[in-house]
């Protein structure tokens, strides 16, 4: 999980490097170093107008390495739009193209108030399949619930965004090998146990046999007395 990255010169620099590396390793789809344009919209009454929010740079699908670089500052206009959408129970919608430059998008949404009350603290999840195609996008904010807070405008200076990447994992397969290993180990252990205990019958069970024998002896020796008593 990448820590929230602030919009700094270093970040931009990193993004450029990532961009370049993305170009270099274009055919290495599985590692999937790539850049996706993230667009957003403050939707009121279902009229979505998307504008560029920034780029998501994914450096490694497997290593879950990705981060977000905003395109520009969160302007006063944006703040007003967000406030308006938030007060009118509007939505905050996000989308990324399936491929860079493609007109096919995957999109998601959260209530606009959730973004407003979290003061731009959101967490993106982008899902990829095993060949590196984008499947879906989702977003959550912290906190995720709207309680009707009034957030000062100073909180909206920059995005506190983390990006998570999820790739399709391979399904489980019946684990026969471990089980067979375990069986073998048990067998070996049993054999070992059997070798240890190669004492004679008497050697093993003398503690049971001796009391029985003593008891029988007592019983037989008492018998004539008891008989005599009865007479």
């Amino acid at each position, binding site marked *: 999980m990448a820590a929230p990255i602030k919009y700094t010169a270093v970040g931009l620099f990193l993004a450029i490097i990532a961009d370049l590396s993305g170009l270099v390793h274009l055919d290495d789809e599985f590692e999937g170093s790539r850049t996706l344009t993230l667009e957003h919209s403050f939707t009121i009454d279902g009229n979505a107008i998307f504008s560029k929010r920034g780029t998501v740079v994914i450096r490694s699908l497997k290593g879950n390495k990705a981060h977000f670089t905003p395109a520009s500052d969160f302007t006063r206009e944006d703040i007003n739009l967000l406030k308006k959408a938030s007060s009118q129970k509007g939505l905050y919608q996000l989308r990324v193209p399936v491929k860079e430059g493609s007109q096919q998008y995957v*999109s*998601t949404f959260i209530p606009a108030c959730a973004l407003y009350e979290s003061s731009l603290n959101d967490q993106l999840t982008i899902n990829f399949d095993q060949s590196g195609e984008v*499947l879906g996008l989702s977003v959550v904010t912290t906190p*995720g619930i709207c309680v009707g807070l009034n957030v000062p405008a100073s909180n909206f200076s920059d995005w506190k965004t983390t990006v998570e990447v999820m790739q399709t994992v391979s399904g489980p397969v*019946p*684990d026969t090998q471990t089980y067979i290993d375990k069986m073998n180990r048990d067998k070996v*252990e049993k054999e070992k146990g059997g070798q240890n205990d190669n004492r004679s019958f008497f050697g093993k069970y003398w503690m049971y046999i001796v009391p029985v024998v003593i008891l029988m002896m007592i019983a037989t020796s008492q018998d004539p007395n008891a008989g005599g008593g009865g007479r």
Partner: protein
Amino acid sequence: MSAQWKEIMLVINFLFIPTVWCLYEDQMGLFDWKQDFVGKVEYLHWDQSPAAMGKRLFVGTEKNVVASINAYNGSLAWRRVFEESVRGRVDRLLYQTNILISVLAGGRFVRSWQMGTSLLLWETSLLADDSIRASAVFTSREKADSFLVVTAHALYNIKTNDGKKIWETNLPKSDTANRWFIGVNEDDTYALVGVTPETDVVMATVNQEGTVISQNSVPAPWINDDTSCQIVKGSYFVCYVPSKQALQVLRLSGGKNFISTSLRDLGFEATSETSIEIPSTGVTGFETEIILRVSRNHMSVLTIEGNSLKIVKNMPQVSAVQIVENEDTSYIITLQKSLKEPSVSITGYELKSGQESAELSQKIPFANSHGLPLKVNVMMFTRRRDSKIGCKVAILSEDDALQVIQKPGRVSWRREEALADILAIEMVDLPVSENQAKFEDEFGSHDDVFVMFIKRLKAQLSQLQSFVIKMVERLQGLRHPAPTLSDEDIDQEEEEVEEEEDLIRDEFNLHKVIVAVTKAGKIFGIRSQTGKIVWQHYLPDLSPFDKYNRQTMLLFVQRTTAHFPNPPQCAILGKNKRTGNALIFTINPALGVTIAGTPPNGLDLGYKVVQASLLNEVDEHFLKGIILMDTQGKIHVYPESVQISSSLPSLYLHLTDLDTNIITGYRIVNTNDKGLKADEVWNINLQKSQQTITQVVCKRAIEHVHSQGRVLGDRSVLYKYLNPNLMAVVAEGEEPPSPGTHKGPSKFFSIYLVDGVTGHIVFHVNHKRCHGPINTVHSENWVVYSYFSEKHRRHEIAVLEMFEGKEQSNSTAFSSLSPPPQPLVLRQSYIFSSPLSAMATTVTEKGLTNKNIIISLKFGGLLSLPKALLDPRRPAMPSQESMEEGVIPYIPEIPIHTEAIINYNRTLSRVDGIYTGPAGLESTSLILTYGLDMFYTRVMPSKMFDVLKEDFDYVLIGSILFIMILVSILTQKLAAKRALSRAWK
């Protein structure tokens, strides 16, 4: 150390071997019932053999079944179920005196059956293409010693007694023709007509030695696979062309082109049902007349004289016709449904003279719920006593039912074969008894004291009244209800009187009404404890939604029985056969009466529906609404009295587009001027280029989850990820063969767990070199699915289980908009040693009982498997902690214990689905499997913890209690006495 493990494992194994499911021999059939079906009948023959004349019926059906039905009571004498795929398709069922031959899969399997026992006498395999239906006919009308089969490749003449090929001939144009018709000429040559769709027909004449004497081809651009055609008198080929509304006649010997005769010229008005009728035996070749179906209930018999068509008999109002021969006289048998009363009149005419035969004519009761009779098969015989002719009649009606009349005027039995094709099923509680309902009414309301007092008095008075009535009845003895002829009475005519009274809820709410919606458009209400049909409705216009070759109908329980005095209500949603619009039909499932305001044939909604869902919102009468989305994306609510504005805008819908593999989520909003509207809010793209979505499995709405987490060995709690909006999406695909390696194409499938509100993909997993059919069960916090592993060539079952972790983010409510952190998904897979056809999980009233997975195995068993065996937390190396928790150590194979087969020796063929429903008892879950067979039983996954055992010793417990009380009183007395005497000292 290891010995200790073994012991523990042994103990655990014993714990999980379900001893309670085993039945004692005398309990067979006590809690369960099974019904066998054959499916919609395509070929029907009366047994004409001298030994068992008219005692049996032989049928071949759409469900790939050949069966023999006992003609006296309708029971199955034997049934042969063939493969479900095209390899089992019954193309022809030939019958003559002592020979019964089935031609399967385009002629690939030709089998002769011993008629009494269904033993296979011989089998032969022909060179065939199973995508093309074979035609077959005996070489002569009576006592044939060979028969002809035409496959995609050649014409075969096969001996009936041993299946040896006498000869085979290649036919002209056999590479393009995909339908063949055979006719037998009077001069014992065979006329063959091959149809190449949208191009031409080819005619060939073959002599008895198997050489093609003549051949000719005639262009016929109007002909296609559905065109109904027939060879008449062995020398004419007749087709009906719907686009031209005309009959086309071709003379087979030297005909150069088709001669068209418009239906108008014959005096008929063409309808969409107009076609040439295939006889109920399904075998053609000897016809001299054409039976033309003009409309649903207008038939006409035509013949050809000198190249022109002539009407032999025109029969408006008649819906089923058969031409049958008895001792050299041909008769036309017609069936006419009465418009006024539920009855059908059967009339026989002599074909030549057109005279009505009084001996054949009769009137039988015929309920409206059967629709119209469509086909009839009459077995005529001349009685020896008085040399009068008599007949036995088998009728196939629009609702796929088969009925047989043994004695004139009365239906001996009927088989509701529509039940072999159930598309939607629900179990509905029975209503409470009248007195109990009054109590509910009394305590449910919040009236003032005076009104409540009056109610109390009234309730007690009515109790007294019913008591008195009962006593009087008991004194008078049983009375039979007065006979009146109405639709319902016909159905209950044969049922015993005693059963009619108890359609009320039992003590533990174990008895229910099963509502089944079938492909034929018939809806049944079935008593769950006996399997008897309580009510039935036939809707002629109702047909299933049919998209991507998947047939679905929807059944919603809009109101349960819990809201007295409002009656329960179910809604059936399907497609209107004629208009293509959505058709909705509402019914009271307990009594089977249509809800007031619903048209008797269902309400056409006037738009096509792409998505429908039951709402949680109720109107003032506790009726749940149904939300519907039409093709324009407009949202409708049925009934309109349900107001959903209070739950807006937190109502979401999703649509899955199989053409693009894009799932789109919508939020429903209320626009002030245009009504309800669906706004697109999310979409995910599941890569159509690689795979296709095959299933979307949501959780059941009636499911309750009792426990929020699992207690681990160290007494901490692992919380379940319980997202009610989660759906499991299954997509199957095929990887192209990679050029580098020498592997062929390999199939794979993926499972996506998607939140239906936000489109968040919670988890996705991919199985390589595995393929379906995939059975998925989605419940609580887990998904169980079965698949076939190509790599290991075995069936496997995998389980995904989701946990939030050791802390719960929101313990009061779940919101998809502020979801808990990414769940921990545990997964494990097991070998399953038997192929399976369907899976379901048990449901109980409160979700307290353990879950069992009910699996129907292809060999006919129904396995009840504890979910604990499909637990991804089963450790490979058991530790102290896992033992304390009671997790079973991992064993890669799931055992199939014979004790866990809950249908004991009653083999279930071709199970389409398993329905599970809760009973009033928490321990019990009701199970109904449907498909070719219906089987009902109940299971107790955690044993019967809430019911005393049958052999519970009441006397012993009672007497001990009594003695204890006695002793305590005595000792008290004694103690008091003693204390007193001590005080005196």
